[in-house]
């Protein structure tokens, strides 16, 4: 944060330098390994139960550490504002995404609504990757951003459903209403939200003393576990790309790269408005830029079964996730610094 780049050229330089360092971090390289292995049809695979266990570990660790951080640094006056900002962003981004999709691509309304929902929601692994870049740069951030992440998971789903309903025939609307029964409950009580918020609350209650107890489980091995998890995500993304590459028209690919940048700008604006720290700003930008690959796809299968999962999963996991991981996060970091975050 010491050096604030002044002009665009410098910004580009910084992004590139950061991205270059970033690209060589084990986390990214393991994602690339998984991606490559899947694309060449290696039979390398992580058992489903192991992948789920890794994901439980990450949510547990990130939630807990967030809670402890809030417990140690006290609750900022911006906590509530951040939660509101996150919720609003999650509600709003799908509308922008939908508009953009209608302009840039030839997706039908249902598919476009489903994709849009993914971009309003968040990817917790992208969040974690941003956290670890911040850490390596020695930039602090608000611990409660974890809670903001949780708050941003669900609202986008409502927007997506609302958009889909607006463009549907009455018969389709009735069908959707039928499918949606009980869905809101399911979304709010989604395992990943419950685990993230629950661990956050427990971290908040236990504080640094609690952290000391389980530090060598959730802090020191964290990065290594993250590498394994990204290996798995690379495998899954690669399998998806191999199976659905033919459905990815240039417009869609472009959208998958443009949308996160736009999302990050919305996040930046919100962060500046509510006065987040530079680190917090990067995280809110990253959350806004990231696209869901757990909660939203499952909700879409239930509520919009006619939307093609190959499209939204591939865009989210195969395009936007790697973009954020490699170029996006360094870019958001540089932007946050440039815009005085």
């Amino acid at each position, binding site marked *: 944060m010491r050096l604030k780049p002044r002009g665009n050229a410098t910004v580009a330089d910084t992004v590139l330098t950061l991205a270059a360092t970033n690209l060589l971090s084990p986390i990214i390289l393991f994602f690339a390994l998984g991606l490559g292995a899947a694309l060449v049809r290696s039979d390398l695979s992580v058992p*489903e139960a192991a992948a789920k266990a890794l994901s439980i570990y990450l949510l547990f660790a990130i939630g807990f550490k967030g809670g402890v951080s809030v417990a140690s640094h006290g609750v900022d006056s911006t906590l509530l504002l951040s939660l509101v900002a996150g919720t609003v962003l999650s509600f709003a981004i799908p509308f922008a995404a939908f508009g953009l999709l209608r302009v840039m691509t030839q997706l039908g309304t249902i598919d476009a609504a489903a994709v849009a929902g993914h971009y309003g929601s968040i990817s917790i692994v992208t969040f974690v990757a941003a956290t670890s870049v911040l850490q390596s740069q020695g930039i602090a951030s608000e611990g409660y951003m974890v809670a903001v992440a949780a708050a941003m998971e669900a609202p986008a789903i409502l927007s997506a459903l609302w958009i889909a309903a607006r463009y549907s025939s009455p018969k389709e609307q009735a069908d959707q209403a039928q499918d949606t029964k009980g869905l809101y409950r399911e979304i709010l009580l989604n395992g990943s939200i419950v685990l993230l918020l629950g661990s956050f609350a427990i971290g908040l209650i236990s504080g640094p003393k609690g952290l000391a107890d389980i530090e060598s489980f959730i802090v020191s091995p964290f990065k290594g576990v993250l590498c394994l998890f990204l290996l798995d995500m690379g495998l*899954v993304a690669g399998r998806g790309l191999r199976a659905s590459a033919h459905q990815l028209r240039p417009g869609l690919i472009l959208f998958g790269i443009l949308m996160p940048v736009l999302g990050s700008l919305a996040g930046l604006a919100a962060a500046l408005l509510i006065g987040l720290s530079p680190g917090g700003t990067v995280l809110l930008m990253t959350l806004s830029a990231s696209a869901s690959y757990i909660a939203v796809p*499952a*909700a879409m299968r239930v509520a919009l079964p006619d939307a093609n999962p190959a499209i939204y999963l591939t865009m989210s996991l195969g395009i936007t996730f790697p973009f954020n991981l490699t170029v996006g996060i360094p870019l958001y970091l540089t932007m946050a610094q440039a815009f005085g975050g």
Partner: protein
Amino acid sequence: MEMKQAKRVEITIEAPMENRLTDSLDRAGVTGYTILPVLGGSGRSGRWSREGQVSRAGGMVTIICIIRPERLDQLLEAAFGVVERHIGVVCVSDCQVLRAERF
């Protein structure tokens, strides 16, 4: 062994719909079923596999339901209400069961 005629219904459905299907079966008075995990498959929407999956979205389960022939229609109606708009397969075959009083 004394055996009785029954129907075996096998429904393969997306994992996020599992609870909706079993709730609907329960409501239709079908309380006996067994749920098998599915590793992967292929259909009109392409090949898929559970390997490495974290989300429930990309998986399916198979629900097996053994039922008296006279109750089949009720079951199928309940099931159809759920699977209608979703991908999945419903397949019925004849079978014979021991301990028929249980069904």
